[in-house]
């Protein structure tokens, strides 16, 4: 069956001063029908850039190569006009940072409503249920409603958690096939994290959509993802089901990531992710990896399938 989203050999760079800095390096992913793919990795590894590339929302100085297919249709060569029919309708985004992603001078209700009403292809007559009612229903479902009053409130009058739920409503109202969720718990207090996860789980069950769940929070990824892709320094290093990747990590980075969790002993890895302007050739994890060998510095790691559906990009896994 055709995957909802297929990313093939995606490369993204940015024009900085007089050169092009490579960020995303030959990334390949796919997301199937109703599947949630968790894209995890530390801050700055390029996850959000990947999400923006799918949504074609990269800044003007970006250079993109490779292929992104939505249900078999190539997205990158599409005209802006054609892509706009997909974006915001079939492929939607739940952005990060609720405090800055909402228009401070528009009511939250309007901001959700306009996801439908202000699109060029909107037709009032074609609506079975008035849009306003739909908005209220979604607010209700996401426990965001004080007797219908939230609609007319401005973002500054709501808490961070409520704003996050408004953002999620914007993703839910469109009945999209693919939702790119960007760091849903980053701006939310630890205590409220579970609430956001709950809301997202509900949405997944109610709307049966595919999701790209971009997050650095492994707990969130585990709770919501069917499959997980691990990203480091702009490259995918490991993909597999949630259970496979998180319980039997094969790539040294993934293993380090998991053992660095507080509940696993807080074994923090040495060093920092290298700057994109000074990326080492061959394996990008070589300077921090405890298992680094000669081959790691000379040749790009290839993909190995260690168990059915579980793929790793590492020299060490050859043949094991």
């Amino acid at each position, binding site marked *: 069956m055709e995957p909802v989203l297929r990313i093939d050999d995606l490369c993204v760079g940015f024009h900085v001063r007089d050169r092009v800095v490579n960020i995303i390096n030959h990334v390949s992913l796919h997301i199937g029908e109703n599947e949630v793919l968790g894209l995890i990795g530390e801050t700055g590894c390029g996850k959000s850039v990947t999400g923006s590339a799918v949504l074609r929302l990269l800044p003007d100085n970006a250079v993109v190569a490779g292929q992104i297919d939505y249900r078999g249709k190539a997205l990158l060569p599409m005209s802006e006009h054609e892509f706009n*029919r997909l974006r*915001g309708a079939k492929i939607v985004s739940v952005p990060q940072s609720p405090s800055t*992603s909402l228009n*401070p001078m*528009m009511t939250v209700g309007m901001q959700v409503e306009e996801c439908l009403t202000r699109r060029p292809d909107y037709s009032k007559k074609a609506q079975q249920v008035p849009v306003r009612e739909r908005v209220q229903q979604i607010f209700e479902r996401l426990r965001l409603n004080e007797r219908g009053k939230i609609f007319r409130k*401005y973002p500054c009058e709501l808490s961070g958690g409520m704003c996050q739920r408004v953002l999620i409503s914007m993703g839910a109202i469109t009945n999209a096939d693919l939702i790119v969720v960007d760091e849903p718990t980053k701006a939310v207090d630890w205590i409220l994290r579970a609430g956001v996860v709950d809301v997202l789980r509900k949405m997944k069950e109610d709307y049966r959509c595919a999701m790209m769940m971009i997050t650095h929070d492994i707990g969130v990824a585990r709770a919501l993802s069917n499959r997980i892709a691990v990203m480091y320094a702009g490259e995918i290093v490991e993909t597999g089901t949630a259970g496979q990747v998180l319980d039997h990590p094969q790539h040294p980075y993934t293993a380090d990531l998991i053992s660095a969790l507080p509940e696993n002993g807080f074994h923090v890895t040495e060093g920092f992710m290298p700057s994109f302007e000074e990326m080492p050739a061959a394996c990008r994890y070589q300077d921090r990896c405890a298992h680094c060998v000669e081959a790691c510095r000379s040749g790009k790691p290839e993909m190995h399938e260690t168990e059915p559906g579980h793929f790793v990009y590492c020299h060490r896994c050859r043949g094991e």
Partner: protein
Amino acid sequence: MLKYIVKRLLVMLLVLWAVSTMTYFMVHVTPGDAATAIVFNLTGGTNMDEELIERINKRFDLDKPVYVQYFNWLLGVFRMDFGISYRYNMPVMDMIKARLPNTARLGLTAVFLSALIGIPLGVLSALRQNRLLDHTSRVATLFIGSVPGFLSGLVLIIIFSLKLKWFPTSGMKTAGSIVLPAVTLALGMVATTTRMMRTGMLDVLRQDFMVVAKAKGIRRSSMLVSHAFRNALPSIVTVIGLQIGHILGGSVLVETIFAWPGLGSLLNDAVSNRDTPMLEGCVILITFGYTAINLLVDVVYAWLDPRVKYTEG
């Protein structure tokens, strides 16, 4: 919101009191001069009779202690009574009332002209940042903004009054008389207007919610109006407020050049003639107007921004 307004009103009252007091003491530093000035104006400087000066001192309480004079004067200000003009021998307030509408008309026309050009130009420059329109408008407004008001006024007179004879050189006699002075005033402001509008718009355009709006796939017109422009509205209000401030100062020059019978030329006359009450009246009223308009602008700005309106403010 209400709290905000009340707080600002109180500050404004304080400022007004301080402004009046400062003006009073600036102008009255040498009280002896007042009587001399009056006699000078009355007799044309030919008959500076000592006794006459004495009588005038008594008549206008000019020999009373400073604080008494000040207090009486302050009461007068409260009642909007600034005394009698030394030069015209008429109540100051009457003359000001006669001239105020003229300045207001001139000023509003100039603001309208400047906004008409500056706001769209600024918005377009921001939307087409760093392209031809942007660079051209920035260079053009830089040049125009460096030309002093009196020069542009004189040049306009030469071209449109003397050579082309489209408009009169001065005065307020015909309907077209307002054109040249208003254009001169507007030219001085259009540079700042455009630049501030551009900056305000650029600030809005690079915000996250603009990208989110694009992600929602809404119509470009909705994006520009409901998202970009709506958030740039406070900038527009600030810009207009600034312009009005500029007018109050610039009108002194422009009205003098074009012999426009307004408050500005009245003030200038008062300075030349050492007409103290008139000077006080003009300075205080112009400053009051400036303060009041600034307050109005701030209130409108706050009202437009829900973040101020719905929180404590």
